[in-house]
């Protein structure tokens, strides 16, 4: 009944909830120049084609989540629970996002893509992303799991996506060779991630304080996650290091290598906190 074993058993879900929200928000932010029509034809084409990068990050997360299923061949039944089961709603939103994003990406290779159709498609993808991240944030809001049904639990995941997403967008820009409107655009993205990081750290400290007083008849939350606050510190340091690398890269020339390093640092920080989330699983009764 130790938290580490619980989280390790759900390691694919830790990966999923680390990668998918960050990849999805990264995709959304990367699509904004195209959506707003502020790019020339050449930039638009490269941004469209390299939008597969954040999409691939989100898809790796989704594939990871599917591997924890005992019997994926029954997966289509998941759609019968949309609106009733939070997990069904989350999977449905994920599938809509991936289907629309996949269609958009394929259409980008058309010889003469119609701009208006592309913009409608990318707007639809962005709406799907918002719904996906929100549905994911509320996927584990079940009254009987007292450590997961905290009011700030969904906020933490949404902020995770806002810490990781902008850095993945920068990586996408670098891979596409897109410089946009100069370093100001990149700095704005790092600033958004920095503000989200500060808020996210604060949210985790509040969650940590709430967890310290929780227990059922079998175990206490603080014994399941004995190092919650040190983990928050590790998260903040890793993510801050990632943002610093990204900031430095923005100030010079966006390089894929430095932004891969920045993304890995930020995602590693988020991974730590997602791991503690699964470690903290505790029901109101006899479940751990």
């Amino acid at each position, binding site marked *: *009944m130790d938290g580490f074993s619980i989280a390790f058993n759900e390691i694919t879900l830790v990966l999923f909830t680390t990668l998918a929200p960050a990849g999805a928000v990264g995709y959304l932010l990367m699509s904004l120049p195209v959506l707003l029509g502020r790019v020339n034809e050449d930039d638009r084409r490269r941004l469209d084609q390299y939008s597969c990068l954040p999409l691939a990050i989100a898809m790796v997360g989704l594939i990871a989540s599917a591997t*924890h*299923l*005992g*019997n*994926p061949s*029954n*997966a289509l*039944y*998941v759609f*019968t*629970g949309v609106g*009733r*089961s*939070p*997990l*069904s709603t989350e*999977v449905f939103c994920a599938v809509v996002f991936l289907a629309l994003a996949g269609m958009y990406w394929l259409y980008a290779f058309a010889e003469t893509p119609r701009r208006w159709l592309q913009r409608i498609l990318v707007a639809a993808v962005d709406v799907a992303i918002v719904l996906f991240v929100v549905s994911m944030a509320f996927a*584990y809001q*079940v*009254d*009987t*799991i007292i450590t997961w049904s905290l009011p700030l639990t969904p906020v933490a995941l949404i902020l995770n996506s806002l810490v990781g997403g902008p850095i993945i967008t920068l990586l996408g820009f670098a891979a596409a060779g897109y410089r946009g409107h100069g370093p100001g655009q990149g700095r704005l993205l790092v600033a958004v991630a920095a503000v989200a990081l500060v808020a996210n750290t604060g949210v985790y400290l509040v969650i940590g304080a709430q967890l310290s007083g929780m227990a*059922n*008849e*079998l175990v206490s939350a603080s014994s399941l996650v004995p190092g919650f606050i040190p983990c928050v510190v590790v998260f903040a340091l890793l993510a801050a290091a990632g943002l610093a690398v990204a900031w430095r890269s923005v100030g010079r020339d966006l390089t894929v290598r430095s932004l891969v390093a920045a993304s890995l640092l930020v995602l590693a920080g988020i991974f730590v906190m997602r791991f503690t989330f699964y470690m903290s*699983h505790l*029901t*109101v*009764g*006899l*479940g751990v």
Partner: protein
Amino acid sequence: MPYAFHTNARRCTGCKACVMACKDQHDLGPDIAFRQVYEYGGGTWERREDGTVASDAFAYYVSVACNHCANPACSQVCPTGAMHKDERDLMCVDVQRCIGCGYCALSCPYRAPKVDRDAGHSVKCDGCTERVAAGMKPVCVEACPRRALDFGPADEIVERYGIESNLLPLPDATATSPRLALTLPTCVEADPQRVARDGAVLNLREIV
């Protein structure tokens, strides 16, 4: 017609014949049990002024499986509808629909559903629904040498044993409205505050 279990925590000796009968009936290995017996106790030894030693220890046993709740968490979160009430209103797993995601196991406050990783789907107490259909009681009930367990139509169980369904270490009944009637142990009836203050689950390593 909903069914309910009755557990008599005054009679139960914690022998676990119910647990083993259930494992036998459902062919369960060492890692999965549909029924658990919790040993709950506390108290200490005290030396009196005259030099004698007295104990105020208390202990009782609670045998619990799925309570086929009226407000079940497991089926509410199940994404596929595999976790469902059958025609006898007993919570069962439809293995043709279950994806083995484990959300039912995560959400149940009674530890009732488990994911059988080898089989690839959730498994749980189905109230021995086939035995019930044949007019018999669940095997755990029939195995109990102290007749501390009973099972039957919910209204008959309530009429016979009352409506009490709160007893530590079980979760508060408001969480899922379990179909469970309890006969409380004498130590709880005598001093429930003391039991709540000093009690703890004493057999954690036996719980799977």
